[in-house]
């Protein structure tokens, strides 16, 4: 199984690995996936007072494509508003990383992670959540 160059790049030089303070009011945390499935992604966003994502961090337990999908997600999140981030689709990730069919689910999980993180932020802010994406408890 040969990986696309971009997947290898994200794997070898992952962007934004790490953690934000999940107790911070401006931080939204999304943890999706399950160990039994071989994929768990934790994605966090720090949202400014104006509703713009200033920082994003990730940690992933999963294959190269899963790591690349979540790494890419953090890159794309920075600078977007919460509403703009809501529009990120897994198909965009698939295209950017050239994911083969068998790895598409990695991009779906990344989209879930984004939405779960955004909903976590919304809950903290008392804003209605969007959709049913939620985080592990």
């Amino acid at each position, binding site marked *: *199984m040969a*990986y696309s160059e971009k997947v*290898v790049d994200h*794997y070898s030089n*992952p962007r934004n*690995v790490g*953690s934000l303070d999940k107790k911070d009011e401006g931080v939204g945390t999304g*943890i*999706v*996936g*399950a*160990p*039994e*499935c*071989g*994929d*768990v*992604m*934790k994605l966090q966003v720090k949202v400014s007072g104006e509703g713009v994502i200033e920082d994003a961090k990730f*940690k*992933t*337990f*999963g*294959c*190269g494509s*899963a*790591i690349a999908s979540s790494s890419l997600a953090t890159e794309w999140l920075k600078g977007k508003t919460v509403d703009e981030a809501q529009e990120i689709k897994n198909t965009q990730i698939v295209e950017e990383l050239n994911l083969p069919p*068998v790895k598409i689910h990695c991009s779906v999980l990344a989209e*879930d992670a984004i939405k*779960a993180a955004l909903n976590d932020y919304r809950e903290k802010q008392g804003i209605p959540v969007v959709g049913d994406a*939620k*985080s*592990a*408890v």
Partner: protein
Amino acid sequence: MSIKFPIYMDYQATTPMDSRVLEEMVPYFTDTFGNSASRNHSYGWEAEKAVDDARERLANVIGADPREIIFTSGATESDNMALKGVAEMYKTKGKHIITSMIEHKAIIDSAKRLETWGFDVTYLMPGEDGITSTQMVEEAITDETILVSIMTANNEIGVINPIREIGQLCRAHKIIFHTDATQGYGKVPLDVNEDFIDLLSMTGHKIYGPKGVGALYVRRRKPRVRLAALIDGGGHERGMRSGTLNVSGIVGFGKAAQICHEEMEEEGIRLTNMRDKFKATMMESLEEVYVNGHETKRLPGNINLSFPYVEGESLIMGLKDVAVSSGSACTSASLEPSYVLKAMGRGDELAHSSIRFGFGRFTTQEEIDFVAEKTVDVVNRMREMSPLYEMVKEGIDLSKVEWAHH
């Protein structure tokens, strides 16, 4: 000494051919190229002699008579022959077969096919150490049982089953005992008489011989085992397996067997030491490393380790200069984690985090040291990136988490 990259550590998948084997095979392509079934001229006679020599060398490894060695295209075919051939021949005596859940697919899929043909199959679940015990077999035996098939050593986790005891049990019950010895032949001592074996599958490419050739040992006496042939056409191999013999492959197979017979003990000691040293390094350098399968009842050249909180495919990606394999679902085309590790009750998470390291004849200590260091590096790096590791470090009990997944 320079290392050749990528370092090959997948010796259970296949082995490079020993140059002595290749040398032995060469004349049989263009010089002694005859069909060993040609009765009327020296081309045929010479080929036949070469085949018979190989038969003898193969038989010697397991204490068999050369006439009991039937050549096939490989262990998969041998497994098919053993199961389907016995089932067909003895079906009036009974229709129950016992095997294990962690056999190679050649056994499991053959057994599944027999089920569609009206046979009952019991698939024994191994213990947590991966071993199928004599007691498990005994509890499954019924009046209808005609065959027990238990592998000598498992290809994924390397554990060795109690073949002699199982064989003895089957002999006492007059049940035919087959063992798939693909991974064990030439690597651990086996004797068809002392171990009460009636049928045994073996293949060339796991013992530094060529791919595409294997054999089935079929007992001639006490008791005589008969098989219905799967392949018809000319009656070769005592009517059990028709088809022109792969003379050059067989010559190579025989030479490979001879080398194993002579070097098995010494090689076993060397590999066991290297493996144990590798394991010790892993355990000392990393927190939480698990050996999958029994600690000591295992092949000299195999160790299957799980590294919790790190997924296998991402680990392999980091070990890009090393050729290993993983029980992770991601590395199987079907996204299912290794059925072997699952059957052991390992839990899917540990299956996802497993790597099989397979050493062999040409593995050097330098290579092992390199791989050990690299693996420790990559595991640590992946753990830094792992949300599971982070949660564990925070004191969270992962088994109590409600995961959000589809």
